[in-house]
């Protein structure tokens, strides 16, 4: 028996918007500690990890670990039926092949419930080792989103290089080149506008902008994004979900012939 009640229903909608571009089908794993998901995109280049801790739910009951395979587009269809202020309750019985979604309006005068069919999905769970990253950049998520969007209209890939001066995003395309440098900036009115760079050693890695653009779909979840880079590891793009958990994206770097250190 699984029963989750999430007062801030819009959060679930945002979460889904954040991952459904990247992944079609995925298993949601529910345990006593929380609601999580890990899935690779179809080309096995990117990985998305979601965690919503049980503390973040108004009510959380999960008697036994349960894995629910869902088509994310279908789930998104259902969640579209929920209003932004609605309270969402997710229910599933053990051994059932459906999940029930219940949407209550904040004034309790409208209640809708939906039953969605689950599916069997073979998913490989990947172990993600804890790692020390050479550079960690925290910046406003809107800024990152903007940069990725802008650069993707010029080139396919972005070279992200972190130096003491700041973080540089550069691309090259048929029509020309582009460089965007963000300097460390902590003197801002609001802490979420800060750009903070922690760097142990300089890193520069190339990534496909297409994926980064999918990642930025998570921007509504958080005002800031944390980008962790290490020369021999996939980049981690993390959006924290306030008081609940996070969405993390991992993206394997492009391998550059003349740049030995980016090789896996």
């Amino acid at each position, binding site marked *: 028996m699984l029963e989750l009640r999430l007062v801030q229903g819009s959060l679930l909608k945002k979460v889904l918007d954040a991952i459904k571009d*990247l992944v079609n089908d995925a298993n949601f794993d529910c345990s006593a500690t929380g609601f999580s998901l890990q899935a*690779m995109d*179809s080309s096995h*280049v990117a*990985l998305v990890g979601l965690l919503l801790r049980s503390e973040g739910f108004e009510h959380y009951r999960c008697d036994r670990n349960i894995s629910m395979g869902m088509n994310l587009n279908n789930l998104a269809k259902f969640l579209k039926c929920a209003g932004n202020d609605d309270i969402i309750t997710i229910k599933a019985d053990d051994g059932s092949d459906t999940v029930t979604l219940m949407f209550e309006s904040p004034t309790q005068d409208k209640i809708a419930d939906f039953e969605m069919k689950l599916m069997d999905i073979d998913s490989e769970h990947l172990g993600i080792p804890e790692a020390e990253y050479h550079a960690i950049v925290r910046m406003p998520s809107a800024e990152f989103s903007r940069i990725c969007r802008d650069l993707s209209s*010029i080139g*396919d890939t972005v070279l992200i290089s972190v130096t003491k001066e700041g973080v540089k995003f550069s691309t090259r395309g048929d029509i020309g080149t582009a460089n965007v440098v963000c300097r460390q900036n902590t003197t801002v009115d609001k802490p979420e506008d800060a750009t903070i760079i922690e760097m142990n050693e300089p890193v520069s890695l190339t990534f496909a902008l*297409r994926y980064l653009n999918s990642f930025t779909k998570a921007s509504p979840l958080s005002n800031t994004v944390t980008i962790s880079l290490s020369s021999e590891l996939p980049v981690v793009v993390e959006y924290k979900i306030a008081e609940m958990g996070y969405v993390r994206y991992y993206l394997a770097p492009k391998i550059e012939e003349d740049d030995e250190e980016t090789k896996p």
Partner: protein
Amino acid sequence: MADIETLGIVEEIQSIVADKLQVVSYKWLSRNFSVSSNAAKSLLEEFVGKYGNGLEVIYSLSGWLKNNPSTYHIRLVSKQKLADAKQEFDENCSIQVYSVQACLPKDPATLWNHEFVQAEDLFKQPLSVDNCLRDNRFCGVSNSFIKRNPGKGTATPQVKTTGVSGSFKDQQKIVQQSSPNIVQSLDIAKNVKTESHVKEDPGQGAQLASDKEKAPQQAPNKKKGHNDKNSSGTGGALASMWGRASTKTKHDVPLPPKDISLQKSAGSADAQICAREAVQHESSDEDGQNFNMKRTSNGEGSRKRRVVLDYSDEEDEYQDAVNLASPEPPKKSTPGLKNSSTVSGLGSNLSFEEEKVNKPNVKEVKEPNVKANQLSVEEIPDISKGKKLESSTTDKTNSLSPETKAGIKDKATDDGPKRRKVLKTRIDERGREVTEVVWEGPEPDTKSDNNSMKKSENNTVNNAINRPPGVKKSPALGTSAPANQGGKAGNKKGGTKDPKQGNILSFFKKV
């Protein structure tokens, strides 16, 4: 003969056990490779002898128990406990390899899983299909109550049993003798399940040579076909349209004039079949039903197989030999030739230009399709690379379109060495499995394909083919960047192909 075949099977067992980590029991083996269960057991024993070191073996012991001589007992034991278990039996117990696996399963049910799935599959087959479970042809237990299809049943088995069993003869005898007893001794608690299986199995002796060929392909192929379907299934409607266009492109065999083409088509029957099936493969694979329907409307519909043999030289005027829906390529190819010659004879500029227009577009299409393929078929990577190269050349020709002819010539010369034959297997839309040899590699003349389509499939299809170009123009014109950005699954597959793109799996290990 048996030796040669078993050698192959033993290798295969190894790969199944070691790579797929599957439990290989003699029952599974027997059904999968259509060998008698006794042969399967001896195969397993041979296998254990050869490679058994790193593997776990489960033996099936059967015989009379010492302490309780009235019960006939069958027990599955692991390698380690074999000696102990033997002690409990009377001297004359038979020891057979029941299954081999990479490690001992925690849950004993795992031992039956694969058999069960297999048996289920076999039973699910339509009634008309004769499979080994339905007539139980591998069962050597025979008496007057057992009836099998005449010709298939007991006559062959006997022969085979004696032929195959060899070293196992003794044990086999024991088992066969004991089998009636087993039927009565179902009460043994722990092994009830085993016994119920064993009851039907121990004597399985039959083996049909004809099935031998059939069945081994079945299981592996099924999977493969499935994959194919999946990969093509995930692509949207557009993808399937592209797929169709590209199907045609793959099969032209560049060749000089008619007479040679005739020679060719009249050539070895094998080649014909290969070519035919290749085409069939492609078409039914990517757009299954549509095609089927069209073909029926074509009048030739009763035939599913179709050949498009393109013998086009660098000369554009010589169109290709087209051959549709016929099992006898030579016969059909003649009309095709006629057709083409009339077309070229008319020499209508219009049609010719149209072809030209079509050609580059169709090629554009090829790339995504190839990508999709690549996911499912392992052999293709190099080729797809080749294709990519080719498609870039296509872009060039596109821009050069006035001088397409020259472009084609270049390509034709370039392409020769890149192409090769590839064996492909899949399940077609009727659920039959098809193995075929396909020409893989960049194609110099798509245009001829379009032509063949026109002739063979009427205007409707022609329209269908002509439509895609409009759609595809945008990717062709723009740089690949914007085209790729759609973030949708179909496009993502494209990303995989990028040789520079790292794979997340190379960083994180599966748990």
